[in-house]
């Protein structure tokens, strides 16, 4: 199993770079993962998306529909792609510390 090291803490990641244990997530981990997804600087809007995804996941153990993400953040789909060039599923969800969604993603 591969791992990343953030501030001296080893965190296991899967083959696609998704962290394995959501409890190990913190803002520094998010910033670290963001760089791998083409997000150099996490701004307020990035955090709004990431925090929504994370809160939803902790509550329901599943990623929200993109519909819900847009509705709750008030951001258009186009804007979410501007924030996260690799998209909401592989980009934003990964940065938010969600495990890789099962299925054809």
């Amino acid at each position: 199993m591969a791992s990343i090291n953030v501030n001296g803490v080893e965190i296991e990641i899967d083959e696609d770079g998704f962290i394995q244990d959501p409890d190990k997530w913190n803002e520094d981990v998010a910033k670290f993962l963001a760089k791998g997804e083409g997000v150099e600087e996490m701004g307020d809007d990035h955090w709004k998306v990431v925090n929504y995804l994370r809160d939803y996941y902790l509550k329901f153990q599943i990623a929200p529909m993109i519909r819900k993400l847009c509705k709750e953040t008030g951001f258009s789909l186009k804007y979410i792609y501007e924030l996260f060039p690799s998209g909401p599923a592989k980009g934003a969800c990964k940065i938010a510390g969600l495990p890789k969604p099962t299925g054809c993603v």
Partner: protein
Amino acid sequence: MSVIEAKKLDFGFMKEVVDKACTAKNRIDLYNCLACGMCSAGCPYNGVHDNADPRKFIRQLVLGLRDEVLNSRFIWACTQCGRCTMDCPMGVEVLTLVRTVRGNFGLRAPGFLQDVVDNQIKTGNQMEVTTEDYLETLEWMEEELQAEVNDPNAKIPIDKEGAEFLFLWDPREIKYYPQDVQSIAKIMWYVGADWTCSSRWWDATHYALFSGNDEESRIITQRYADEVKRLKVKELVVTECGHATHANKWGPKVWLDKDNDYPVKSIIEKYVEWFEAGLLKVDKTKNPEPITLHDPCNTVRKQGLGDAIRYVLNRIVMDFREMVPNGVYNYCCGGGGGLLAMGSEIYPCRMAKGKLKADQINETGCKLVACPCHNCFDQLTDIFKYYKMDCKVIHLHHLISHALIMEEKPR
């Protein structure tokens, strides 16, 4: 060198596999292997990573090396792409033997492949999208489309009885890529398609094709046969997804006993029909970038849609360049056969296979790859990342929908 112990050989094993095999052809033909090894020459991955030798697999089956076969890495690392059979002088369907072994001997696939099947059986779709969320997303994309084309009559019909065709989605379009829904619906609107979605069973995908469990395949396939009847549609049309196209076209004949002859098409075939009928007017100068095509094995080698894809591409892009080899001889992306759902255990094989595809693409000089398949789409994206390629994958519908000539909309 390993020793084969005669007393351990199970001479009934091959027959057991053949008897359980699910094929549209004659099962008996599976015995026709001449041990010539052309399959091993035909498999692009033989030598790319270990345990990728189809001839060895067949010989083990024939000899009755039961444990070796059931515990082999080969049966999971094989992408069931069918390339080996292209070179087999006897046409032995190696992928059928692989699928049969996977699904009939109490084995569990690596990774989360079975979870995907379980989700689909249990919830009706592999991503556990609720009906409410599904309908809300369709409604949302309908509103977005209406705003985009400035026409309140641009609709995404649901449960419309007597429509010409029922359209099945890939759940990732619904859950993660709703812009794909809008793009496809835009084309439907443009040509004035008489289509409908189902509120009940709408997931085109079919991972039991990969797990090899025929009972689960039957359950999934029956749902769409029932929907065709309930909604009184003439045909079933499947989104740009390779294995879903194959499973829905081939599946009814092998898994269902009755009412299994409803017509099933890929949306690619509809694009061709719409072009032929003069309904699709596309400005190809909107797609000027050099672009190559990855032929999805399930759509092209198994369902023969290579010419249809090229017919469409030549009408929608300026500079189409073939990779070599291509068409029915194309190499798999390396992510077929359910490998994308097999987790870290199979990942090294998947990336090793992907090197061939990376080289093929690099040789074309294109930075854009057309691919009418979601599974290949993800594998290609993973390959680009892994081999640090500055490339992008794109579906046919995106190339079409953003290049439609609005002033010439037919009706």
